[in-house]
């Protein structure tokens, strides 16, 4: 493993050096043009366009020619293999990783838990099992982009990790539990939703739980059946741990957990040494999965 990390560090250093060379070369080619064409003629807007198009173009050409993009991709893949896949393999069984794939948009939109916007990105797919409970996770970004020709605006609805776990109780109706810090959800509670699919806002008997979460259920009895007092305590602890930026959905015999972290947890930085990697995010992710399965007793096959 140490040998692999050393090789990865060498690759990172080579990639960073290449990046510095390309940036310097792009600047040396572009800046004189900007000076001659834009600064001397006081056409600053033109200077900006030269910087973007010529600078960007030069960077892209040099990047391809020197193999920088390939090296950066290789670094990313090797980093994930060593620092993401290996810890997952150690903590879980039957681990399968595909960092270029994710959870399909159809699955997420099919849950009717999130506003879907018009842009959807997903990667870092990992599937595995813990105490015989199967799970899958991926990084997901959902955005809504609008443009009127002159101005464009992008609103990020969700950026974080999405977990799908097997749930040990049978249920027939959808249930949604939304932390007070989580936005852009689809609640299906409007007058226009058919009665069969409509979720109603319900209050549990725990006042603190009601302060931290909004619960929408198609069937009140089933909500009380799933949300046992122990389950509610676990969610209250999770709320403190995650600042309420998460949502749970019980749909089609699966438990969906959406955690809005606002960042891509598994992306490595070229500018940090891999000899002392920051594995906090990966470890936190592993702990979250273990915590959910253990605290919610998802391994109890009592009801199946």
């Amino acid at each position, binding site marked *: 493993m140490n040998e692999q990390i050393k090789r990865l560090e060498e690759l990172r250093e080579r990639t960073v050096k290449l990046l510095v060379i390309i940036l310097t070369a792009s600047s040396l080619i572009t800046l004189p043009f900007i000076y001659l064409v834009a600064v001397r003629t006081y056409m600053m807007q033109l200077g900006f366009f030269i910087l973007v198009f010529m600078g960007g173009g030069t960077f892209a050409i040099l990047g391809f020619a020197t193999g920088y993009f390939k090296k950066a991709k290789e670094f990313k893949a090797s980093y994930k293999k060593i620092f993401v896949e290996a810890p997952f393999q150690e903590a879980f069984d039957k681990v399968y990783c595909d960092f270029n794939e994710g959870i399909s948009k159809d699955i997420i939109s099919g849950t009717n838990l999130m506003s879907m916007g018009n842009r959807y990105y997903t990667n870092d797919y990992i599937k595995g099992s813990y105490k015989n409970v199967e799970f899958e996770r991926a990084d997901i970004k959902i955005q809504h982009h609008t443009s009127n020709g002159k101005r464009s605006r992008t609103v990020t609805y969700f950026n974080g990790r999405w977990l799908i776990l097997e749930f040990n109780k049978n249920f027939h109706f959808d249930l949604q539990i939304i932390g007070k810090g989580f936005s852009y959800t689809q609640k299906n509670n409007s007058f226009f939703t058919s009665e069969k699919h409509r979720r109603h806002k319900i*209050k*549990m*008997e725990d006042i603190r739980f009601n302060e931290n979460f909004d619960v929408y259920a198609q069937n*009140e*009895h*089933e909500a*009380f*059946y799933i949300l*046992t*007092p122990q389950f509610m305590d676990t969610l209250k602890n999770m709320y403190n741990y995650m600042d309420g930026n998460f949502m749970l959905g019980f749909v089609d015999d699966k438990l969906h957990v959406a955690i809005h972290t606002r960042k891509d947890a598994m992306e490595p930085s070229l500018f940090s040494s891999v000899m002392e990697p920051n594995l906090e995010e990966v470890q936190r992710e592993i702990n979250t999965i273990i915590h959910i399965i253990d605290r919610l007793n998802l391994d109890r096959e*009592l*009801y199946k």
Partner: protein
Amino acid sequence: MPVFILLPIALIFIIFIWYVSTMNSLRRAEVKIDEALSSIDVALTKRYDVLTKMLDICKNYIKYEKETILETIKLRSGMSIEDRKAANTDLDQASNFINAVAENYPELKSSENFRQLQVSVMEVEEHLQAARRMYNSNVAYLNQKLVSFPTSIIAKNLGLTSRLFFEADVSKKQDVDMDF
């Protein structure tokens, strides 16, 4: 139209809307309580049925007839909360009795039929607990409204009265006499 006429009309309209929505919310609370009660009844009946099946399996190990054990349990429609609580306590005792028998006869405890029924009992008990919590939660909501001003005025007009909570019986945790 002059303001001194518009203002009282607007005020009356707002009070009317408030009255209707409060009345509806109180009625809704009542319906929810009735739904929860019906869920409790369903769970109690299911629990009774599963325990009866378990006693059938236990019959070779005990000297009593199952009818003797279950005779005190009376489930009927239109029971009061007190009746339901009493039935639940009796079912707790029957369940504890069966568990005590199973503890003394390992071959019974390990039989597949018995194990499956134990799983069913646990599931039914969780449903019963859910129904009980839902009932108590809705009763707490209604009872709060009944004592809060000005909702209490509408509640009084509707003839609503506070409801009793369905509390879990402490005797559930007590051991049973093991005289098989």
